[in-house]
C-alpha cells in the first residue's frame, strides 16, 4: 500500500492510495474460499468447487465486494497511520482499477480540527437566580383565577354594558334576499360584549339592551369573511336577549383551591411556588448554560470542517421548512420558498456555532472520560416514555428496536453532563435577579450568532407551551360557564 498526499487545504486532505494488485488478489482468493465452502454448483459437492472455476464464475462479483472492503480497510488504516481524525465519512473516488492491476483511489477527507480546550478553572460565569416571592405567587394565582372566572346574573334590571355576558337567542338572514344561512342562528348563546367574537358592529349594537328585550341587529359581513357567500353582504339578526350576566371575580380562597383539586389555599400556594421555583431553576440553568456556551464560543476559534458545517446548515434549513409546513398560516407573509441571502448568512453562522460548540463539548467529554452509562440512558428513555401516557410500551419498543433513536437521546444527555462537568470546574457566581429579568427573552437584542441550539429549542418549546396555555384557558372557562348554565 502506497500513500501519497496530494494536497492539503485547511482541514481538507486529499490523499492518493495505491493498493498492489497481488494484495487485491489475495483478498479475492480468501473471499472466494470462504464463499466456496457453501457455494452450490451443479456437478460439484458443496465446498469442492475448484478455485479456478469459482473465480471464473464469481470473480467479478467478488471483486466488487473485495474492492469495497479493501478501500474501507486501507482508508481506515491510512487515517490511523497519519493520525487523522476524520470529521465525516471520507469521500473516496476510485481512479483506476482492473483485474490484475493496482487499485488507485483518491480520498478526500475532512479532519477534525486540532484545538486546545481552554482551562475552565478561570472561567467566571454568572448564574442568575430568582426566588419566587409572595408577589409572584399571588400574581400566578391571580392569573389562574382569571382563567377560571365565572359569571353571575346581574342584580336588578340595568342595561347591558361592555364586559357583560349576554345570553341570547338569535337568528339571522341576509338583508337582500331574506335567506337564512347555516350558522346564523343559535339559542342561549353566551357572548361577552367587547370580546370581538362576532363580526364588527354586532356587539356594539347589543350594548345598552335589557334582559327580555328583542333587538334587530343590522350588520354587514366584512369583505374578508371566512364564508365566501356571506362576505361583504348585509345581514339582519333578530336577537332575543334572555339574560345579562356579569363576570364574577374569582376569589382566591380555600374554595377556589378546592375547585382546583387542592386541599386548601396554603397547599395551592405551595404547589404554585414549587412549580415556579422549578421553572426558575430551569431558566437559571438555561441562562447559565447559554453563558457558558457563549464563553466557549468566544474563546475558541478554530476552523470548522466545511462538510459538517454544510450538514448542520442543511439540517437547520430542513427544520425551518418542516416548521413552515406544519403551520402554514403562521408567517404566511414569508412563504417564499427561498430564504434571502441575509437569512442564509445568519443560518450559516448559527450552524457554525453549533458545530463548533458540538466539537468542543465532545472534545471535553472525551478527554475527561465522560460517558453516558446505560442506566442513565434507560432513565431518559423512561422520561421520554412518560411523555406519551398510555403508549409507554410502544415507546419502549421503539427505542429497543431503533438503536439510532436511542443514540439521539444520548446526545443531549452527553451535552448536559459535559456542561455540568465544566460548570463544576468553572467559577459560578450566583446573582439574584428579579423574576422579570430571569424570564426575559434575550433574543431580540442579541446577535443571531449567539443563539445556541439549546437556546433555540428551549425558546420554541416555551412558545408552544405558552400558546397551549392560552388556548386552554378560554376553553376551560367556556366549559365551566356552560356547565353552570346547564345547572341553572
Amino acid at each position, binding site marked *: 500500500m502506497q500513500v501519497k498526499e496530494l494536497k492539503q487545504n485547511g482541514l481538507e486532505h486529499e490523499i492518493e492510495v495505491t493498493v498492489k494488485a497481488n494484495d487485491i488478489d489475495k483478498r479475492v482468493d480468501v473471499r472466494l474460499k470462504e464463499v466456496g465452502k457453501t457455494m452450490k454448483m451443479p*456437478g*460439484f*459437492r458443496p465446498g*469442492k468447487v*475448484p478455485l479456478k*472455476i469459482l473465480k*471464473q*464464475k464469481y470473480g467479478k462479483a467478488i471483486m466488487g465486494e473485495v474492492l469495497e472492503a479493501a478501500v474501507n480497510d486501507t482508508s481506515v488504516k491510512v487515517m490511523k497511520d497519519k493520525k487523522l481524525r476524520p470529521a465525516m465519512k471520507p469521500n473516496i473516488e476510485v481512479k483506476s482499477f482492473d483485474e490484475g492491476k493496482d487499485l488507485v483511489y483518491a480520498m478526500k477527507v475532512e479532519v477534525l480540527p486540532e484545538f486546545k480546550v481552554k482551562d475552565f478553572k478561570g472561567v467566571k460565569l454568572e448564574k442568575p437566580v430568582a426566588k419566587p416571592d409572595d408577589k409572584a405567587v399571588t400574581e400566578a394565582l391571580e392569573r389562574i383565577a382569571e382563567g377560571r372566572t365565572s359569571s353571575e346574573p346581574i342584580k336588578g334590571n340595568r342595561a347591558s354594558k361592555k364586559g357583560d355576558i349576554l345570553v341570547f337567542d338569535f337568528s339571522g338572514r341576509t338583508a337582500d334576499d331574506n335567506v337564512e344561512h347555516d350558522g346564523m342562528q343559535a339559542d342561549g348563546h353566551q357572548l361577552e360584549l367587547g370580546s370581538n367574537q362576532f363580526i364588527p358592529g354586532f356587539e356594539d349594537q347589543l350594548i345598552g339592551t335589557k334582559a327580555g328585550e328583542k333587538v334587530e341587529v343590522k350588520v354587514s359581513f366584512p369583505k374578508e369573511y371566512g364564508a365566501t357567500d356571506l362576505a361583504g353582504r348585509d345581514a339582519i339578526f333578530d336577537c332575543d336577549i334572555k339574560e345579562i350576566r356579569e363576570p364574577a371575580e374569582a376569589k382566591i380562597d380555600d374554595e377556589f383551591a378546592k375547585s382546583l383539586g387542592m386541599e386548601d389555599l396554603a397547599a395551592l400556594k405551595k404547589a404554585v411556588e414549587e412549580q415556579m421555583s422549578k421553572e426558575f431553576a430551569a431558566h437559571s440553568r438555561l441562562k447559565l448554560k447559554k453563558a457558558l456556551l457563549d464563553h466557549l464560543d468566544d474563546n475558541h476559534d478554530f476552523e470548522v470542517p466545511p462538510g459538517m458545517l454544510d450538514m448542520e446548515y442543511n439540517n437547520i434549513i430542513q427544520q425551518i421548512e418542516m416548521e413552515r409546513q406544519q403551520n402554514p398560516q403562521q408567517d404566511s407573509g414569508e412563504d417564499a420558498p427561498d430564504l434571502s441571502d441575509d437569512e442564509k448568512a445568519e443560518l450559516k453562522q448559527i450552524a457554525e456555532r453549533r458545530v463548533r460548540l458540538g466539537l468542543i463539548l465532545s472534545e471535553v467529554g472525551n478527554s475527561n472520560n465522560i460517558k453516558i452509562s446505560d442506566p442513565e440512558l434507560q432513565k431518559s428513555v423512561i422520561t421520554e416514555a412518560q411523555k406519551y401516557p398510555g403508549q409507554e410500551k410502544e415507546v419502549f419498543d421503539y427505542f429497543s428496536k431503533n438503536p439510532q433513536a436511542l443514540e439521539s437521546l444520548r446526545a443531549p444527555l452527553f451535552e448536559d453532563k459535559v456542561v455540568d462537568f465544566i460548570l463544576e470546574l468553572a467559577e459560578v457566581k450566583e446573582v439574584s435577579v428579579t423574576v422579570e429579568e430571569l424570564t426575559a427573552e434575550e433574543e431580540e437584542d442579541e446577535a443571531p450568532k449567539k443563539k445556541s441550539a439549546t437556546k433555540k429549542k428551549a425558546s420554541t418549546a416555551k412558545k408552544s407551551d405558552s400558546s397551549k396555555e392560552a388556548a386552554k384557558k378560554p376553553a376551560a372557562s367556556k366549559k365551566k360557564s356552560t356547565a353552570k348554565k346547564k345547572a341553572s
Partner: protein
Amino acid sequence: MAAKKKEKVEVQEWMYEIIREPHVTEKATMGSEYGQVTFRVPLTATKPRVKAAVETLFGVKVKAVNTLILKGKTKRFKQNHGKRSSIKKAIVTLEEGQTIDVGTGV
C-alpha cells in the same frame, strides 16, 4: 471463417454440432491435471470426429480421445415406463503444454 494456419481441416458446421458443451464436474476437473478436457457430445459422434472438431475449433493438438456413453435411467411413473436420454461424454487428452479454456465458449 478461415481455417487456422496450421490446420489442414477447414472449420465445418458439424464440428460445432459435436462439441455441445464442456462437461464441468468434480470428476472432469480432476482430469485437468493431465491435460484432459471433457465434452458432452452427441451419441453419434465418433472419436476421430471429436478429435478433428477439437483440433480445428480450439486450435490445439489432441493426443487421444476416449468416449463413453452414460445410459439414461429408466424411470417409471405408475404404468408409464420412461427412459431418460443417454449422453455421450468425450474425454479429450491434449498434447502436453496445450490448454483449452473451458467456459469461455467456442
